[in-house]
């Protein structure tokens, strides 16, 4: 049972002191990160392989890396506690201010407020005074309940993040989670919308939320409508747990099995029945190793802060198949601008922790340069199975069709968790086949976004920007001269070229058709003097004007894009 906060305690609470505690936690986090950076500098500098070689050196570097990972986890914990304290301070201040205002408003002819928070009616004034006191008492109680909820949430958050839960407290959280998980499972089974999920989440007390996060991260990590910081925590826990499940002898097992297989000469391969089984097993182990390495790369990529100084948020991941990942640079729930980047053909888990995430980081950095624009969060959304082969897979619509509902749901989820959805400028930007996904999703399910940007699009399924569910004036497209996508877009196989205002080739009819243009705006990109294939990928490269234009659009200055 929560310990209720009394009227006197709320009125007299020194919230500034608590605020200072939160700031101290934040400072601890920053200090740890500084030490982390120093260690990393040693590992990749003075202690790098060029300077220190051999088994001891390798073991030393590995130990430092492990230690750094531990340090990073501690820094993240301290940061989370600081955020929880900040939230609690905000809640306490609201309740304290509300209570103070209420005390000043009480009509002393009708009732009086006693030192323990009881509103005592002036019975000489009859039943009207009793009713009045009852109404005021309800308001007093509401403020006390809010303060108590903030206190319980803080207590649970500190216990969870700082790992100070006692066995008894864990049992309480287990019980709370057991009571709530059924409701969540029902929501998921019924296909609840992100808004409904968000309503459910907000209906939980802080303690219940912590209980669910602690006990069921697998249900929350990828669930649209759950706040970003909660999803991030859940997914990082899941990622860590999945990595722990890989056999510690995996690499050695592969080497040993390969050595056994190498013993077979050509004749023995056919005669020995175990040969095929061994090669199959080797293939399985190698696939497992690749999966582990991909997840390790993802974990490494989001460990430290981005070049912008923003945190990374892991909003979802899946190691099956080519892998999927949704990573945000900055928190879209609190940012002033949010851009969601949908990559195209060839995108996989390896890219999600490499080049694709680099692009998101670059876009966030560029947008941050626009004065007065506030913070821009950029989400790299690889929440779909992207085509692997540009010639064989990319002409097919099935990938976009499969991605259509998840992208729409994700955008609705962001809208529902946003602290100020009306005040946030939101953009969905696709590259290559990612634009086809966006077109399909926008036209089939709708996208909760203000702007849509198509970079090097092969076609967006729709005939006109007006079919994307946004004001066509908020649609932007670009393609660089010489991009290999240009002839593909001209076929019209995936819809008309969104940068083209003129003639398109109708592949079905086998003829050129005249049409009235896609609508919206176009902006300049440079081919950076690359070949057709390179041009298709270098929109985020050094000095490409596409970067300036994307930053302008993301921050609500699309009229300055050119």
């Amino acid at each position, binding site marked *: 049972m929560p310990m209720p906060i009394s009227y006197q305690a709320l009125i007299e609470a020194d919230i500034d002191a608590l605020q200072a505690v939160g700031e101290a936690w934040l400072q601890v986090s920053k200090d740890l990160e500084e030490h982390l950076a120093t260690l990393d*500098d040693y590992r*990749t*500098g003075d202690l*790098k392989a*060029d300077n220190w070689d051999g088994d001891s050196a390798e073991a030393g570097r590995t130990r430092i890396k492990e230690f750094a990972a531990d340090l990073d986890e501690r820094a993240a914990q301290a940061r989370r506690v600081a955020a929880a304290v900040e939230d609690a301070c905000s809640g306490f201040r609201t309740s304290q201010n509300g209570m103070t205002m209420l005390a000043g408003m009480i009509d002393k002819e009708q009732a009086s407020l006693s030192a323990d928070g009881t509103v005592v009616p002036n019975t000489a004034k009859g039943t009207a005074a009793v009713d009045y006191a009852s109404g005021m008492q309800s308001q007093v109680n509401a403020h006390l309940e809010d303060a108590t909820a903030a206190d319980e949430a803080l207590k649970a958050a500190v216990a969870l993040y700082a790992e100070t839960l006692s066995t008894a407290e864990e049992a309480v959280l287990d019980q709370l989670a057991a009571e709530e998980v059924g409701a969540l499972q029902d929501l998921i089974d019924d296909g609840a919308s992100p808004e409904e999920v968000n309503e459910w989440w907000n209906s939980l007390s802080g303690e219940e939320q912590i209980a669910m996060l602690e006990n069921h991260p697998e249900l929350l990590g990828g669930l649209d409508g759950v706040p970003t910081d909660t999803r991030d925590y859940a997914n990082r826990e899941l990622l860590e747990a999945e990595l722990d499940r890989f056999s510690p002898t995996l690499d050695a097992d592969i080497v040993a099995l390969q050595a056994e297989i190498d013993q077979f000469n050509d004749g023995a391969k056919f005669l020995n029945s175990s040969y095929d089984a061994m090669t199959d097993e080797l293939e399985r182990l190698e696939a497992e190793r690749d999966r582990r390495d991909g997840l390790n790369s993802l974990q490494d990529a989001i460990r*430290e*802060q*981005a*070049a*912008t*100084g923003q945190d990374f948020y892991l909003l979802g991941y899946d190691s099956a198949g080519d892998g999927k990942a949704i990573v945000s640079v900055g928190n879209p729930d609190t940012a002033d601008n949010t851009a969601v980047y949908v990559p195209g053909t060839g995108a996989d888990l390896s890219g999600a922790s*490499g*080049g694709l995430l*680099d*692009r998101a*980081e*670059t876009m966030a*950095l*560029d947008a941050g*340069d*626009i*004065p007065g624009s506030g913070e821009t969060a950029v989400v790299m959304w690889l929440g779909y199975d992207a085509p692997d082969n540009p010639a064989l897979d990319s002409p097919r619509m099935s990938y976009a069709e499969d991605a259509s509902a998840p992208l729409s749901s994700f955008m609705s989820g962001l809208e529902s968790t946003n602290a100020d959805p009306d005040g946030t400028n939101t953009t969905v930007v696709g590259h290559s086949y990612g634009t086809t996904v966006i077109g399909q999703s926008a036209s089939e399910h709708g996208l909760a976004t203000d702007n849509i940007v198509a970079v090097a699009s092969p076609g967006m399924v729709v005939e006109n920007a007006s079919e994307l569910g946004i004001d066509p004036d908020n649609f932007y497209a670009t393609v660089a001269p010489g991009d290999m996508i240009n002839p593909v877009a001209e076929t019209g196989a995936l819809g008309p070229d969104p940068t083209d205002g003129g003639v398109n080739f109708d592949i079905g009819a086998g003829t050129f058709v005249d049409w009235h243009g896609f609508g919206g705006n176009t902006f*300049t990109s*440079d081919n*950076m*003097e*690359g*070949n057709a*294939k*390179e041009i298709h*990928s*270098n929109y*985020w*490269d*050094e*000095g490409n*004007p596409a970067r*300036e234009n994307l*930053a*302008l659009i993301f921050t609500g*200055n699309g*009229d*300055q894009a*050119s």
Partner: protein
Amino acid sequence: MSSDLPELEFNLDEAFLRMDEAIGETIARLPDFPGFYERRTLQLKCAEEGRESYEISYTLPEATIGSELVTMDYFEVLKEHWPAIGYEIHAERKYPDGNPKALEATRSDGVNVWYSNMLGQIVIHAQVACVRAEGSPVCGPPLGGVLPENDNHKHCQLVTPEETESADAIAPFKDGQAMLRPFEQPGREPEGFDGQL
């Protein structure tokens, strides 16, 4: 940056030093230079395995946002200064109202410098495209009086001037390390540029 990538005369070890050097050369002749507020680094993958692109960005102080000096005059200065020191200007962009948006030039060693006006906020980027990802990237102290807390050098290891001296053995620059000397005061030109530009 075609697939027949031209061999740059340096690798990852030197990339950040070269970029800082190019920015130092760029600002050396900007009158009443206000100094920098922040330094940041970026990394981008290249299509070709084993190569990476890097970028350093310096932002000018908030007080300069929208000033005629940095959003107009410096463009004109750089149009003369860059060619004078052997840089080739290859891009010039304007806003719809005709005001300068960006100017870019390439140095003979392949370092690209990008003077960018983001709605009044000036950012000077230097970039190297697709260097061989060999070695450990180091960077010297930031230019233009950037305070340590505003120096976000995520992708390179900061070396002190003494260490930079030793790095000279693998990263020889003409006339030593003068280009890497941080500006002590905003607006002060590095003495080491005298006679070199």
